[in-house]
């Protein structure tokens, strides 16, 4: 802090931060509270303590199927987004001079709300292939996850030592060897962070999944959304809490491996 910040500002800042934390975390705390309540209906603060809603959720085929679908989808999206995004980021870092426009294009799914291309994608897919399928979701999620991988990888590549590749070249390494043994290891932290974001985005994504859903293609967020529209019960809270815990676990791993602040403010 700058020296001689008035005392009332310091105290005010602390109160403000606490209130902001409460506001930002309140929905998550509430969901977690409801999930362990004994009551038949949704109640916060929770009454008693029981894990029966978790048992009910884990025995519900609708939730379990949706969970496996979301998991499979997120895993495949992570792989495809990392391969395409990693390659694109390496390409962009080399084409710095003419890369500006291409980079903007690559990052445009980040600024353009997904609802706009969700409706277009549904229309194109129906016109060509008929009913939506797993592949449609895979394609859609890869598009939205791609910019995150590109951004994290580009950030890492910007800090690398460019002479390393030059050295490999003078020592006679082929293009493929340079890419595999020099550039790719340099990308690793960025790719890893990108992979976490890609997985998380796909696993939590609701807009594209809602537009492309059909009775056989219900991801976990869509299943929860359906329950919320229809009749929320504490089972939804149990499933939601499990989703929050997965996010927390992903964040902890990311922080341990790479440091969160590094990618948060970039």
């Amino acid at each position, binding site marked *: 802090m*700058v020296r001689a910040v008035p005392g009332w500002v310091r105290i005010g800042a602390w109160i403000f931060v606490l209130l902001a934390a409460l506001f930002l975390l309140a929905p998550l705390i509430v969901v977690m509270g409801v999930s362990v309540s004994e009551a038949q209906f949704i109640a916060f603060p929770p009454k008693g303590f029981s894990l029966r809603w978790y048992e009910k959720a884990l025995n519900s085929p609708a939730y379990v199927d949706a969970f496996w679908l979301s998991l499979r989808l997120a895993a495949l999206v992570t792989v495809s987004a990392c391969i395409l995004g990693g390659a694109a980021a390496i390409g962009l870092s080399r084409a710095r001079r003419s890369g500006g426009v291409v980079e903007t294009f690559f990052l445009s799914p980040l600024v*353009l709300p997904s609802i706009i291309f969700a409706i277009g994608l549904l*229309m194109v897919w129906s016109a060509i292939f008929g009913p939506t399928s797993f592949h449609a979701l895979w394609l859609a999620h890869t598009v939205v996850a791609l910019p995150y991988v590109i951004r994290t990888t580009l950030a890492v590549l910007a800090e690398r030592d460019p002479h390393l590749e030059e050295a490999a070249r003078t020592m006679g390494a082929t293009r493929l060897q340079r890419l595999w043994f020099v550039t790719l290891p340099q990308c690793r932290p960025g790719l890893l962070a990108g992979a976490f974001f890609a997985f*998380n985005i796909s696993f939590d994504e609701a807009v594209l999944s809602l537009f492309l859903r059909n009775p056989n293609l219900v991801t976990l967020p869509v299943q929860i959304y359906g329950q919320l529209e229809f009749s929320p019960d504490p089972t939804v809270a149990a499933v939601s809490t499990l989703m929050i815990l997965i996010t927390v676990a992903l964040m902890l791993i990311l922080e341990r491996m790479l440091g969160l602040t590094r990618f948060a403010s970039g």
Partner: protein
Amino acid sequence: MTDRRETWLLLSPGLVLLVVAFLLPIARMLVLSVQGPDGTTLVHFNRFFQDAYYPLVLWRTVYLSAIITLICMVIGFPLAYIMARSTPRIRLWLVIMVILPLMTSVVVRTFGWMVLLGRSGLIASSLRDLGLAGRSFQLMQTETAITLGMVQVLLPFMVLSLLGVLVRLDPRLEEAARTMGCSFLQTLRTVVLPLAAPGLLAGSILVFTLSASSFVTPSLLGGARIEMLAGSIYKNVTQTLDWNFAAAQAVILFAGIAALLIPYLKLGARPHG
């Protein structure tokens, strides 16, 4: 193989994906919006603007998004400033506090608000207990509910945009202003705020855009009565299956967002040449 060829080879798989699964759908949507039974037509747009209901939906989308953006600015600026000026250890905790909700599914967070804002929820019942609200008081299905929920969903975007700018700000600039006799608040207003303007602008555009185009939170908290544009698009796509009309609404949304984004992108591109 030349270096140039190799670069393009690396870029092309991603480019192909974006052209096929991103550009083509947007183009298709644009075409559908002007497609009628007998060729090109503006009938879907006419229907939108001449209806009594839809202009109201559009207006609600714009003013609620503006209010949400404004609140995000007012809360986001001090929060980001405190984060930028705190020790690395505290900053890590604050970043976690901002990113954890951001990375949690919107559906889950909206559920939390549904519980909090419901008739028997914590907020309504404490207001009743304090005698500040009547028996039938309820927050769900009001614009207040949408605003509260959306601010919580979008605040992290504002904070992170601002934080990116504020952490790079040299604290000595503020010290200089202080030595020259500025009070703390004067320093904030005359030094920090103008220098943070790019982050504030970027964050505001992001928050406004996301707010105008989201439907999960507004439709769950606002209900069917208080509709916003994105919710209306979703309804037309999945329930009434009126795809041309849905496309026309998406084009209106798209045009509004483009009108905001393009000047901004041009502005941002200038310093880099």
